[in-house]
């Protein structure tokens, strides 16, 4: 049969942004996929070189607009390392709690959009957004922003935590734990959901290592790699949590990894809330454009973002970055898409693509 070339995107309801795929199909079987990216490129790395250190966090939040605080934190952490600033202990706990809340919000949105992509299961989408709205409500009260927070300051946060923070967070994670447990009953017994995900887009362990994929995609292929465990930052080494891994490496395994990570995040938050100093100061240094001068040395900061391992490589100058390079998990995970789609059916494109959890703000940057 003749090979037909089909264009998908760049503006398509299921591409979660702007991605163009050129797909060669033989009948319904995919022979080759080309990915075309760069439709959201705006030169973040270059823009950051023209700004003072503490003007940049707002650019970093727009890299991953589903979990903005994670990129905010990794950038501020790299500046802290360049300037040699210690984070206060209470602020370390507070950051861990907020970052894990952000991870929960990210995974909830991901589950919702995946269900939407694979067959218009709009009910689960609505449920996920109901829970996510509660998380955002808490984050808004704590940080002052609904979606973009810019709440990290050198050495801490932008303001004190509200007095009822502990009670509200406990109530919130109890609520989410109960609600998210319901998803399993609905999804894992749903024929459509299982048929669309099981055995689709299998990434073997060897390929996962060769392609250098990150985060849940790597862990779904049977490799236990999590920066929170392998190079702990903040107070993660004092907290008891496990890193879920799966051996199969198909879309269903990727879904299970993220689903189980929600419960691990809840576990982390619960412990961190108990261990957080009762009356600790979490407020960091106010924003000053001319801060303490950074040592001219290379700074590399690794963090486990909700989508995988993110790295910032920075060559600091005195008042602003001389060179800044971003290693985004979405970019490396997108590279494996043609491999996963080889020999798959055309209808599987968006199940496989959705399972990788790619965001184009950080991929195109």
């Amino acid at each position, binding site marked *: 049969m003749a090979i037909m070339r089909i264009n998908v995107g760049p503006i398509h*309801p299921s591409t979660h942004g702007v991605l163009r795929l050129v797909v060669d199909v033989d009948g319904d079987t995919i022979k080759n996929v080309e990915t075309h990216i760069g439709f959201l490129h705006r030169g973040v790395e270059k823009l950051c070189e023209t700004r003072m250190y503490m003007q940049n966090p707002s650019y970093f939040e727009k890299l991953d607009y589903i979990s903005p605080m994670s990129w905010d934190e990794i950038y501020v952490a790299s500046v802290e390392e360049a300037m040699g600033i210690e984070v206060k202990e209470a602020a370390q706990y507070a950051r861990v709690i907020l970052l894990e809340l952000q991870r929960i919000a990210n995974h909830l949105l991901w589950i919702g959009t995946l269900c939407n992509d694979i067959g218009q299961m709009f009910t689960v989408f609505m449920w996920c957004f109901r829970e996510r*709205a509660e998380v955002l409500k808490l984050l808004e009260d704590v940080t002052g922003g609904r979606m973009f927070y810019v709440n990290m300051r050198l050495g801490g946060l932008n303001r004190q935590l509200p007095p009822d923070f502990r009670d509200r967070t406990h109530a919130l994670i109890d609520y989410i734990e109960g609600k998210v447990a319901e998803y399993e009953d609905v999804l894992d017994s749903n024929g459509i959901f299982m048929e669309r995900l099981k055995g689709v887009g299998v990434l073997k362990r060897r390929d996962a290592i060769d392609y250098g994929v990150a985060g849940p995609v790597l862990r779904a292929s049977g490799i236990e790699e999590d920066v929170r465990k392998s190079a702990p930052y903040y107070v993660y080494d004092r907290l008891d949590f496990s890193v879920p891994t799966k051996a199969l490496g198909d879309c269903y395994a990727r879904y299970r990894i993220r689903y189980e990570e929600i419960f691990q995040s809840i576990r982390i938050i619960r412990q961190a809330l108990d261990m957080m100093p009762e009356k600790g100061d979490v407020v960091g240094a106010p924003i000053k454009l001319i801060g303490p001068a950074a040592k001219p040395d290379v700074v590399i900061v690794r963090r486990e973002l909700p989508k995988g391992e993110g790295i910032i490589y920075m060559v600091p100058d005195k008042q602003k970055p001389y060179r800044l390079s971003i290693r985004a998990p979405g970019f490396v995970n997108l590279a494996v898409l043609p491999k996963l789609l080889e020999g798959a059916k055309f209808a599987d494109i968006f199940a496989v693509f959705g399972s990788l959890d790619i965001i184009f703000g950080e991929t195109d940057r």
Partner: protein
Amino acid sequence: MAEAQAVDAETGAPYTPERFMNAEQKMTALVEESLAGYKGQKRSVNAMFTKLSDVSKMMSKPLITWGRSNSLWPLQFGLACCAIELMDFGASRIDAERKGYLLFRGTPRQCDVMIVAGWVTKSVVPRIKRLYEQMAEPRYVVAFGECATCGGPWWESYNIVKGIDQVLPVDIYVAGCPPRPENLFSALMKLQQKVGGKIAGNTERNLSETARRNESERL
């Protein structure tokens, strides 16, 4: 002797002017015939015998604007951060579809409103233009967020168009980075009033501006 009349080759019937009329001309003739008795008397005629275009002329303004303003279907299309708030707008907390006139559609051919949510890069501009041209007129554009309004935080970037209004005629601007879903709701209700002619600016502005742009492109 009467001159020989042209005859249809198949049926043998003589040609009359009616045979060359199209449906609308026939209808007009019929209406004029029916109106003949009423000429001079100022009374309305039976709608059955009027042309379709007459009906639309008679009822157009109130009926069509009412219909348009109560069936604004936005295009399901997102570019960047603001698209997440667009999803929230359609999801459980706000649930735009409960209003009945804000149903997100996947294809531009069924849509009336394009919500440009996110920063617009130079490589995306031709695609957005294509989507806009695929939408049926009258069509409306909402610039959602700072980036679509003026370039926002990417003002100094080399790859960003400083506002979608440099490419498309914009009806409503929504401020915020990103605007809350409630803001979008209020913006679309404003657009509804605008389409319904309740506040300044109406469909004509949009159409004329489109025509002007086409003209300037031709030059």
